[in-house]
Structure formats: structure tokens, C-alpha cells
């Protein structure tokens, strides 16, 4: 039931925020802040209570309510580690989104926060829905407020960007709807029970051809959302035109819904078809990595550059998803979170700069380290995260993904790895153009304010945490991933098992080995 309340809370908060504008101009901000904060706390509570207790099934909470019985549509929500992680991410970024809008958004404050909260509600719905009709429902619901966010509070080309975003996602979404219906009827004709329930549909046996087409239907939606080259061209416009909060949510969350869809639906629903398609998918991923990186390198609009980096980073996601092994999928999950943070952070940075300079053009920047060292340090961390420096979350993500991908396909992995070099190129370009060199225009650039530090600092801390001790996250995701992979454990050969001697390594049994080697181990005190 709590899951339902999460969503309802956000929806209600949104409405309230809209109305509240009449009472006081900044009332909506506080309401939004409170709402998101409380849902964040609620989710953390979930983690503490249920996340800790390992159950035999991966599902922590489930909620089943009849909705449209005639069609076998149920209002069924369920929470597993994956959803929980993504919810945490959602609300964390949501919180930041509210905070960064504090100064940036000055007109139609109420309506803005209404949209913001409804987007969050839609996204959380997507992460929780376990009924395909409901899933599609939320999938669409999250678009409209996002459309408003871009279209009303965006930058100069906002309407174009908003259209593009809406049309792309809508088109792909409808294809998914077709696939859902197809699945629904096939399952219905097989079993006689017509239902959209995820768990029911999981055990549908599909003819290869049907499976392939249905999978493409689902892929259409997810690959566009992810996005994968060549379906990415909505993203740079949407990201660069949206207000900062919008960009953060787009990059941090909306893209993740695509990745989530792949993990949650495509993998378990079409085990055979995906295996056939895997090489192509991985190829797409690699193309995305390289193509995005190249495009990112050439951009002069800071937000556009960051947008293309997301294209590049999301390439790792699809690469990993279609490697079908735990390393890769753990990497993907890490990537979803780490990228959500790092790219969100970069967009926030761009927002800070835009607030001060009213431009996103990097040629008009430079030498800001002198005037704003704090911002410089933050930027450095964010940039390093995006080029995958070890010690920060993205490294774990990318390394695991690549390790996993390597088991599946060597050459593609090699090319993906080359992406890291290109990533270095474009990431350092940001530092160079914005913070290094001389501040020729003599722009006065006040350093980060307290509020801004409040936004930036937690991200840095989280990135470091993810980079140095990701185990909690991995543990949380692990059962979910195992479950998504069930169908594949035979399908994909395991890594060439290490020679038996390695049995004595993990650390627990180190000592024997070290005795043998006349070595001395010391416990960390």
C-alpha cells in the first residue's frame, strides 16, 4: 500500500503546489520540497526495513488491486531492489531539482512545481508498475508534464525541443503498446486468461517470429528513451533547451526508465529473441558510445555537450544489458545511478553558469577557476566522474559493464573501451574551456552560494561513496538482477571458470594462502 501512497503523495503535492501559489509566491517551493523530501525519507525507510531483510523472492513489497477487470488490467505495483534503487535516485534528484529551481524559476512557480512533482510521480509509477497496461499508463503520464517543463520554462528553442521530445517518445511508446497488446492476446489465447499482469505474462511461450516482433515493439520504446543511436536526436535538443531542473530529470531519470524497461521487461519476456538480437544490440551500444563521444567533443553549447555525453554513456547500458551476465547487469545498474548523478551534476553546473552568465556557449567562458575555485573543484569531480575516473561511481559501473561485456563479445568491448579515451577528450574539454585558460571577457563570476554548495556537495559525496564502497547498492540490486537473468543462466555460458586453486581467494580464506607464502596478513584496525 505504501507504494501507492508514494505516488498519491506526489500527485497530491503537485496539485497543492499549484493551488498554493495563490496564497504565497514561494509556498509551492516549500510544498514541493517537503513532498519530495518526505517521499525520499519514506523510500529510505523502505530500504532500511525491507531492503535489509533478504526474502527468498526478490520482491520486497507487492500490491495487487483490480482496476479494469474486463480487460484483466490490475493496479499492481511491486518493489524489488532495482526499483528501490531507482526510486531513491528519483527522489534524490527530484529534491535537487526543486532546490536548483529555487532561484532559476521565477514565473508560474506553482504550475512549474505541479509539473515537476507529476513527472516524478509518473517516473516512480514506471519503476513500480507490474502491470503492462499500468506501465504504459505511467510511461505516457510522465511525458506531458515533462513536455510542459521544457515547453514553458525552457530556453530559446524550447517549443521545437518540446515537440521533438514528445513526438519521439510518443511514437515509440505506441509501438510498445502494440507489442503489449500482441503479448496480451497471445497469452490470452494460450491460457484463456486475458491479463496484463507482468507475472502472468512472464510465462508466455512465444513463437520465435512473434517473440522477435514483440521484442522490437518493446525495444522501440526503450531504445528511443535510452536513447540509442540512431534514435537519439530528440535528446540533445530536449536536454539543452529544458530548464536545469528539467535537464536533470531528463538525463537522470527519464533515460533510466528506458534502461529499466530493458532490464525489467525485455530480458525476462523474450529470452530467446534477445539472445538472437544481442550482437546487434551491443553493436548499437558501441556505436552509441563512440558516436555520442565524437558529437560531444564538437559541441560548444555546454548543455548540448553534456547531452551527447549521456548518449555515449547510455551506450554502455545497452552494451551491458545484452551481455546477459551478472557483472554486466550490475554494471548497468551502477551506470544508471552513477550516470544519473554525474550527468545531473554537470547539468546543474551548467545551470549555475547560465544563471551567472546567461549563456551556455563555452567559447564565451574561460578562466573561471580564478574567480570561482569552489565551483572549479566541484566541476573537476563531476568531469572526472564522467570520464570514468576510478574512485568515482562511474568507474565501477563502466568497468563492471565492460568486464561483463568482454565475456560476451571481445571486439565490441574493445571498441567500447576506446570510448573511454574519447570520453577523456570531451570531458577535459569542458574543464579547459570553462575553468582553465584566461578569463578574457573579465566576467565576474560569484562563487557557489551556500544553497548551491548544498546541492553540489551531496553529489560529490555520493559519487565518492559509489566509487569507493558500492557494495550496499550492489547487494540491493543483486537479487533483482539474478531474477531478471533466470532465463539466461543456461543460455549464456559462464565465464571460463577460474582454476580450482583460486578457491582460496576470497579474503576470508586468505590466511592459509599467506601462511603458505610465509606472508603476514594484518587485520585492519
Amino acid at each position, binding site marked *: 500500500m505504501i507504494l501507492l501512497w508514494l505516488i498519491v503523495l506526489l500527485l497530491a503535492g503537485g496539485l497543492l503546489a499549484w493551488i498554493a501559489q495563490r496564497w504565497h509566491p514561494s509556498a509551492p517551493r516549500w510544498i514541493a520540497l517537503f513532498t519530495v523530501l518526505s517521499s525520499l525519507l519514506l523510500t529510505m525507510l523502505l530500504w532500511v526495513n525491507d531492503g535489509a531483510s533478504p526474502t527468498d523472492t526478490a520482491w520486497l513489497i507487492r500490491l495487487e488491486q483490480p*482496476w*479494469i*477487470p*474486463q*480487460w484483466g488490467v490490475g493496479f499492481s505495483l511491486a518493489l524489488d531492489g532495482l526499483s528501490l534503487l531507482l526510486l531513491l535516485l528519483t527522489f534524490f534528484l527530484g529534491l535537487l531539482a526543486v532546490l536548483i529551481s529555487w532561484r532559476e524559476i521565477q514565473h*508560474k512557480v506553482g*504550475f512549474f512545481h505541479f509539473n515537476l512533482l507529476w513527472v516524478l510521480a509518473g517516473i516512480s509509477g514506471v519503476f513500480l508498475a507490474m502491470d503492462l*497496461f499500468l506501465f*504504459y*499508463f505511467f510511461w*505516457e*503520464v510522465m*511525458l*506531458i508534464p515533462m*513536455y*510542459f517543463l521544457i*515547453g*514553458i520554462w525552457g530556453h530559446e528553442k524550447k*517549443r521545437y525541443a*518540446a*515537440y521533438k521530445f*514528445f*513526438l519521439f517518445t*510518443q*511514437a515509440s511508446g*505506441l*509501438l510498445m*503498446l*502494440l507489442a503489449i*497488446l*500482441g503479448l*496480451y*492476446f497471445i497469452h490470452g489465447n494460450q491460457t484463456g486468461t486475458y491479463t496484463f499482469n507482468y507475472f502472468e505474462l512472464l510465462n508466455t511461450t512465444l513463437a520465435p517470429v512473434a517473440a522477435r516482433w514483440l521484442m522490437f515493439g518493446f525495444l522501440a520504446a526503450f531504445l528511443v528513451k535510452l536513447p540509442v543511436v540512431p534514435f537519439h536526436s530528440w535528446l540533445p535538443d530536449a536536454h539543452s533547451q529544458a530548464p536545469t531542473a528539467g535537464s536533470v530529470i531528463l538525463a537522470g531519470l527519464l533515460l533510466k526508465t528506458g534502461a529499466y524497461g530493458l532490464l525489467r521487461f525485455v530480458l525476462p519476456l523474450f529470452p530467446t529473441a534477445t539472445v538472437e538480437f544481442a550482437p546487434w544490440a551491443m553493436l548499437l551500444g558501441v556505436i552509441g558510445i563512440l558516436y555520442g563521444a565524437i558529437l560531444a567533443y564538437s559541441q560548444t553549447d555546454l548543455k548540448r555537450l553534456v547531452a551527447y555525453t549521456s548518449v555515449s554513456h547510455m551506450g554502455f547500458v545497452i552494451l551491458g544489458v545484452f551481455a546477459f551476465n551478472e557483472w554486466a547487469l550490475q554494471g548497468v545498474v551502477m551506470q544508471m545511478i552513477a550516470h544519473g548523478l554525474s550527468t545531473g551534476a554537470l547539468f546543474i553546473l551548467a545551470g549555475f553558469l547560465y544563471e551567472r552568465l546567461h549563456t551556455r556557449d563555452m567559447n564565451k567562458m574561460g578562466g573561471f577557476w580564478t574567480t570561482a575555485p569552489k565551483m572549479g573543484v566541484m566541476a573537476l569531480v563531476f568531469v572526472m566522474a564522467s570520464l570514468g575516473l576510478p574512485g568515482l561511481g562511474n568507474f565501477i559501473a563502466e568497468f563492471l559493464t565492460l568486464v561483463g561485456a568482454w565475456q560476451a563479445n571481445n571486439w565490441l568491448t574493445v571498441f567500447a573501451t576506446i570510448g573511454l579515451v574519447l570520453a577523456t577528450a570531451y570531458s577535459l574539454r569542458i574543464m579547459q574551456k570553462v575553468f582553465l585558460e584566461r578569463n578574457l571577457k573579465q566576467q565576474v563570476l560569484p562563487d557557489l552560494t551556500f544553497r548551491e554548495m548544498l546541492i553540489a556537495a551531496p553529489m560529490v559525496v555520493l559519487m565518492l561513496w559509489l566509487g569507493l564502497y558500492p557494495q550496499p547498492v550492489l547487494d540491493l540490486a543483486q537479487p533483482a538482477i539474478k531474477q531478471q537473468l533466470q532465463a539466461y543462466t543456461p543460455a549464456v555460458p559462464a565465464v571460463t571458470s577460474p582454476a580450482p586453486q583460486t578457491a582460496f581467494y576470497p579474503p576470508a580464506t586468505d590466511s592459509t594462502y599467506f601462511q603458505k607464502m610465509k606472508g603476514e596478513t594484518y587485520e585492519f584496525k
Partner: protein
Amino acid sequence: MNSNDFLHLMPLLILTFGAIINMLVISVWRNHKIIYVITALSMLAAFGSLLEQRTLGPHHIDPLFIIDGFAVFYMGIILLTALLISMLSYAYFEQREEQKEEYYLLLILSTLGACVLVLSKHFASLFLGLEILSVALYALIAYLRKRERSDEGGIKYLILAAFSSAFLLFGMALVYASAGTMEFAAIATAIASAGGLSLLMLTGFGMMIVGVGFKLGVVPFHMWTPDVYEGAPAPVTAFIATVSKGGMLGLLIRFFMEVDGFRYPALVLIFTIIAVASMFVGNLLALMQRNVKRILAYSSIAHMGYLLVAFLAGNEMGVQAITFYLVAYFITTVGAFGIVAMLSDKVRDAELLSDYKGLLWRRPWTATIFTAMLLSLAGIPLTGGFVGKFYILAAGVNTGLWLLVVTLIINSVIGLYYYIKIIAVMFQQPDAATEATARLRPAIYVASMGTLTILALLLVGIGIYPTALLNLIATVLDSYSTVAFR
């Protein structure tokens, strides 16, 4: 004709009486309010009489009429829509100095015509219903005599409608000539005995399709739609878009189901072509259009195309899908034109996109309702339009009409563009010039606003919890439908 028959025909009778009373009252004392009240009451009464018909079984009044669940349901939605439209019309005409009263007379009559259409199971009743509907419409369209656009629309509609009904008649004649009867069921049996369609019969059907297609405003008989929509007063436009099309669609379904036209590839092919063409042409025409009424006209063409997809599914699910979609579509269309009507002033209707600039900030609530309506037309969740479209898609997928389904999808994307274009205009910054258009008298404003609010709530209601409506449709249609499903 026994009392039972009269009981079953009660709605029609009530409407007729309503019309007559209107005439009498007008002749003694012209008063907008009173006439309006009479109209509303008669429609309510007619609807009320339906309610207790729900319980009675299907009833044949040979040879002309049949009252079954299908008929009752369609009459129901037609009457309710007409009622809503009359409410909007009151607000609309109150601020215009024309002779308002006859309008309601005509409104009732055309409603009557539509009802007759959905009841009829015989060419004669079909023809009568159709003509009652049409002739009243000619006048309604051209009702605002001061506007030349209005009667330009009237003329165009008159000539074209007469022209197409000539086709319809000739077609009926041919069918009659080859079948020897004008009763649907009998025709079906005749075809069955003849074992297939004779050329004469086919030609007849073909020509009838022209007539029907014209009323539905599907490609290639759609060309009148934009001009008439634009010319007619907003409420009348709403009426054309809903009641007249709905009535015709009801008839089409009944006739086709009776004669089981789906067995004949030629007919299926024709309708498929029409459906695909309507979707594409309608949406593409609307794409860059800057006149809201015309946009809605073109989108209505496309929507008829969508409906035909479900129609071509040709099974129970299809009919239910159509019915559901029709309900959503009625609500949406009435709502949309209601908004247009409300924003219109004495001189002209608010039909240019520029009239809507910044509406979201000038009149948030109105704009929100309009947004809801547009999103419903676009088939976005939280609105009835989504469920309707979903249902149609389901029907299509179920029968495996992949071509049509994919076309539908492509088109709903194209369609999305111009719907959100209107929305985008609404949330632009209002420029000082288009500040608050002439306000209505508060009472009326509240009245029409209330109506619209109810519509919006209904729309969202069936969008979020369609179960109730689905049940209703299922029970009413299935329980004692004589519409023969394959």
C-alpha cells in the same frame, strides 16, 4: 401499433411533442429562457423514458423500427449530447441578438432525426431519419444570418448533402430492386438465398456508402467538413460532429452487422481504403492549419478513420470499442466546441490560434479543460480518449488488422503534433493585445463553465476508471442485442 409500441417509441414522441410545444410557445411569446427550458426538459424526458426501456427486451415495430440495447444506448448518448449542446447553445446565443428561439426547435428536430436513424431497420425509416436530421441541419448551420460564412456553409452543406443523399437513395433503390425488400434482415436473408452479392446489389451498396460516407465525413467525401465546421455556429458544429455523425455511425453498424458485410472482400476493401485515407488525409490536413475549428474538423475526419478501424474488426469487441470511443469522442468534441463557443464574441467565433495565446495564464481553468480535451483527442492517458484508442487498437490487434493498426499509430503521432501545438499556443506568454475577451454574464458563465467542468470530469473519470462504462456498454449491448455478431 399497440400501446407497447408507443411505449417503446416514447423518446421519439416526446421529442416531437417538445418540438410542437416549442412552435406554439414561440408563436405566442418569444422568450429564450422558456424555450430553452422546454427543450432541455423534453430531451431530459426523452432520456428518462429510455431509462425504463433499458429493462424491456428488444422490441420490433415492423417494418420500420427496432428498439434494442444498441438502439437504446445510442439514443441515450445522442440525447445527452444534444442536451449538453443545448446548454452550451443557451450561453452562446444569449449574447447574440438574432432570433434565438427557432434554433431550439431545429435542434430538437435534428436530434429526433438522429434518434430515428439509430432505431431504423428499414430503408424508409432510415431515409426519413436522415432527412429530418439533414434538413434541420441546413437551417442550423446557416442560423446566424448576419455572417456570410454561416450561410456559405449552409449552402455548401445543402447542395452536397442533397447530392449525396441522392446517391444514398439511388443505392437503396438498387438494393431494393435486387433484393425485393427494404428491411435489413430481409435483405440479409435475400443475399443469403441468392448466395452472394449480385452486381446490382453491390452497386447499390457502393452508392449507399457514398451517402453514408458523406454524413460521416470520411475521405473522399470529407471536403465539406472544414468549411461547414468553420461556418456553422460553434454549438451547431459540435452537433454535427457528434449527433449527426454518431447517428449515422449507429445506422451503419446496424446495417452492416445485419447484412454481415464483412463477408464481402469488396466492401471490406472499400472501408479499409476509406479508413486509411481518412486517417492520413485528415491528420495531414490539420497539421499546419491555424484555424482551430478547421483543425477540429480535420481531426474529426481522422477520428472517423480510427472508428472505422474498430468497425472493420467486425466483431463484438469492435462494436464495444466503437461505442466506448464514441462516448469519449462525444464528450471531448462537445467540450472542445464548448470552449470555442465560450470564448467567442458577438462578431466572430474564437477560431484563430491567436485567440488562444496565453489562455493558460488568462483563464487557467478554461485552458486546463481545453488541454484535457485536446489530450483526449490525442489519446494521452488520464483521459477517456486514451482508453478509447487503446480499445480500438486492441480490437484491431485482436483481429490482426496490422495495416490499419500501424496506420493508426503513425497517425496518432502526426495528430499529436497539432494537438500539442494548440496547447503550446495556450501556454505562450499572452501579449497585451489579447487580454481578457468580453466576459459573459456571470450566471451564464458559471452555467457553461459548470457544463464544461462536468464534461472534463467525466472525461478524466472514464480515463482513470473505465470499468463502469465498460460494464454498462457490455451489458446494454450484449444483454439483448439483435445486432448479429459473427
